[in-house]
């Protein structure tokens, strides 16, 4: 037996396998990153040079920021961004209040019909959004809330899943803390505010980030409920820009707009990627 030969063959096979694996990973990473590279690249090409390239070039030697200027001046991109920030902050804040209170009731308080109510809540998770959007559209229209922030925000507030997630976390806090607080004469609300929320802060942060992502990317509901460009969110804004934005097809300016609306979430992701991935792994699905 030639051990040296065997060993060498094994090592060679191992190395080929490793190379193949890394090739696959790099290939997929390129596939994921390329659209982002392309939008960045196109956004810094000038209108003239983009349209003169029959064969698109993979780099540019004369980057320009003029597209960003026209993205903010020719179309109300700044307004779309502000609208989206207002919508996202208001919806997320309301969601947090509603969710924390409901999760606290389910996890900590005792009241008649609690188990039944919780089961009913859980079964609500199965209702698909497509079924309820029709009546919500009619409700909001009848209330004259089309093209208002109230109409945009109110139906987007509740997420049964987040109530469930937070309730599970709240329930892990030992009862002794609650009884000790009671002996000291602490009210329920104060206990919730001073003890439960600080202890469960990681989960609350996760829920907040997931909701922010969901709000920032929401498209269907805003599209149904707004037709006045003053109330467009970024998704609808980008669709508007695409369909009748910069007159003739000004692709570089479009890409500048796309970059501008993508940056906030990418930055959020770079800061919180561990939290976001852990939160999604625990049972998030894409909106």
């Amino acid at each position, binding site marked *: 037996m030639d051990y040296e030969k065997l060993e060498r063959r094994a090592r060679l096979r191992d190395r080929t396998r490793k190379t193949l694996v*890394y090739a*696959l*990973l790099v290939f*997929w990473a390129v596939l*994921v*990153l390329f*659209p*982002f590279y*392309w*939008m960045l690249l196109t956004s810094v090409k000038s209108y003239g040079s983009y349209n*003169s*390239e029959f*064969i698109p070039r993979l780099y540019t030697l004369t980057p320009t920021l003029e597209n960003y200027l026209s993205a903010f001046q020719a179309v109300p991109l700044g307004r779309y961004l502000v609208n989206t920030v207002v919508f996202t902050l208001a919806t997320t804040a309301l969601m947090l209040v*509603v969710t924390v*209170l*409901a999760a606290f*009731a*389910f996890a900590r*308080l005792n*009241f*008649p019909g609690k188990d039944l109510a919780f089961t009913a809540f859980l079964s609500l998770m199965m209702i*698909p959004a*497509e*079924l*309820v*959007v*029709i*009546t*919500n*559209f009619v*409700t909001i229209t009848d209330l004259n809330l089309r093209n208002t922030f109230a109409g945009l925000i*109110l*139906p987007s*507030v*509740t997420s049964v899943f987040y*109530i469930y997630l937070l309730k599970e976390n709240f329930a892990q806090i030992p009862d002794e803390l609650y009884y000790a607080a009671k002996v000291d004469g602490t009210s329920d609300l104060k206990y919730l505010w001073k003890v439960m929320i600080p202890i469960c802060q990681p989960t609350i942060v996760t829920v907040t980030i997931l909701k922010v992502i969901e709000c*920032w*990317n929401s*498209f269907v509901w805003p*599209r*149904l409920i707004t037709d006045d460009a003053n109330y467009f969110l*970024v*998704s609808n804004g*980008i*669709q508007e820009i*695409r*369909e009748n934005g910069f007159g003739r097809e000004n692709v570089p300016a479009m*890409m500048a707009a796309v970059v501008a*609306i*993508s940056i906030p*979430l990418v930055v959020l*992701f770079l800061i919180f*990627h561990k939290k*976001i*991935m852990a939160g*999604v*792994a625990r049972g*998030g*699905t*894409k909106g």
Partner: protein
Amino acid sequence: MDNRSWKGWLYLLPALCFLGAFLVYPLMDVFIYSVEEGYNSASQTYFGVGLYNFSYVLHDTYFLQALKNTFILVIITVPLSTGIALLISAALASVRKLRELFQTVFFLPYVTNTLAVGLVFMILFKKTPYSDGLMNLLLGLFGAGPVDFIDGPYWAKMFVLCFYTVWVVMPFKILILTSALASVSQTYYNAARVDGTGRLRMFTKITLPMISPSIFYLVITGFIGAFKAYSDAVALFGTDLNAAGMNTIVGYVYDMLYGNSGGYPSYASAAAIVLFVIVLTITCINLLVSRKHVHYV
């Protein structure tokens, strides 16, 4: 019961108001809408009660086109994305260097705006008078002629839609499968190694059964998500999906509700219920199949 026993309901009240107004009431209402024949949204009147709305929807060529598109999309993207995600997750699990970097990069599409990145995909695939676009250039390297993927033949458009859909759903699947793979105990592999088991056999006999609940979860959510496809199609082909021939069932529902062809909440409701029944049926079939093949530890 102590005196503050009803206080719990007070804490639940905000959630109950929101859920009642925007989830429970609409759910009941949609069934009422769907059987009101000839509903007029301006005068809020209707002629009678019956199943005409369903019959109308099921005979509408736009709906049948949407149904066909959605089924093709589901049949292609669900197995494909699950398979590729399994491959990539297995590759990720077998390396140590740079693993976290790859994981983070692979997850990036999850947080990006579907409409915005869809626009980039459209630019990459579109053939314009100025340029054939990057994808056609790549095709040209293999000797294939330029194809207009956005306004061209049906299967070219379907290819882009499937490609983009897979790209969008991949981060979630990779994440779920990577964490499932990480949770498989090393002792099984060590035992198999002692017996001299090959890699492929280890994968099919240990890894796959151990992560089968996660795969099954992905298949179910994948089916549900793909049946509800809409934003991806809008991002690629614009809001007038009927004209592009690329509408989906959800797109049909929204078109019936609002927009140029809108104002028919009854038809929209009927179509939404048809979609719901389809999704429910497929999910039940999935559950039955899984009983045989999924191993819960």
